């Protein structure tokens, strides 16, 4: 059942690359935040692919817990980034 694991892991690498490219190239802040979230999703896919042990066998629970923690950390970072972007736009309109 290694092929499924490898298939998902390779897709994870592709998504990490897409996210990194987007994060470095985009000018608008919102799209850069979306790109970083996409890159995070790619890394999480790596972790979940590592945890997968095959269709019948129970997967390894540790990466699942790590990804859960990662998702919550990612959403809090996104929330702060969006608040900073909002404050920046508000400042731009004033002056």
């Amino acid at each position: 059942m290694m092929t499924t694991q490898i298939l998902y892991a390779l897709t994870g690498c592709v998504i990490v690359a897409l996210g990194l490219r987007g994060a470095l190239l985009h000018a608008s802040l919102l799209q850069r935040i979306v790109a970083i979230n996409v890159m995070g999703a790619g890394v999480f896919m790596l972790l979940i692919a590592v945890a997968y042990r095959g269709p019948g066998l129970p997967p390894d629970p540790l990466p699942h817990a790590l990804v859960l923690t990662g998702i919550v950390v990612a959403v809090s970072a996104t929330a702060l980034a969006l608040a900073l972007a909002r404050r920046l736009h508000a400042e731009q309109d004033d002056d």
Partner: protein
Amino acid sequence: MKTMTLHVFDGLLLLSIVALAWASLATTDVRRSVILFMAFGLVLAVAWGRLLAPDVALAEAAIGAGLSGALLLAAVHRQPRPLSPVSSNDSRHQGPNGLSIVVRWAVTLLSAALAGTLAWALLHAFSSTPHNMLPQAISGNLAASGVSNPVTAVLLNFRAYDTLLELAVLLTAVLGIFSLGQATPGYQPAGPVFDGLVHWLVPVLILMAGYLLWVGAHAPGGAFQAGAALAAAGVVLRLAGRSRIGLPDGSALRIVMAAGVGVFLLVGLSLLLLGRPFLGYPPAWAGALILLIETAAMLSIAATLLLAFLGGQPESTGVKAAAKQQREEISL
């Protein structure tokens, strides 16, 4: 036959994930990019389900696609719509931010190289014998952990210190948002249809949050998914233009925000006083302590995610007159 269809399903699922990710990042229209990102999050939740990770699928759908999507949409909604919608293709050659072609190709090659080395290393890692040290240790100690769902056991018992710091990260984010200013003005009061949905949907969401919290001990679920469901109820109320969205006022709000980290720390330190290691629950009480911590964490996560959606500290609803609160024109 069965593995054949599974491979076809995997292929299609992964293709759609990569296509959605690429489409979301290729467009220069922010609105399209955010909506495609939400679709990407939902299809990703299907992928987690496929890889037998139901807890993560729940969290990805609720927090990854749901709440992050709501936050991003609220941010896009506030941004002034570009006057002349620049069609995405003519700005293609000039690049999203005017970078020359050389830089764009350099970054593409750099990311491709990163993906290549990552894949090369991963293939090497997978070829060596899979290390089962930790999964066996987890299933071995599961009985003493107080819960039967291994993911919750890892999150709330074996690696409880990680979750404590992660709740502190959530608290830091919302304190950072508070220091940047007041909440965004509310939304137009909803029409009859949306109001009808809210009347029916919000109680179901609250019940679901309670169920998710309870079921987390022995099946996929837990404090994070429950907190996200509760926050979703608040977001729906906010979108329906309600002024009271279930958040307490002033010092009560601060208590709820600090509840998650506070209860966790209190339990950890009191165990220390009883001679146990820090955060070392005695097996007899482990289940009850974990439920206590998860309840406080759920309330804290729900309040924090909702305050993040609000964009800051809500004015104390008592004194706010409807006239003073400037409403957005666009009704949802």
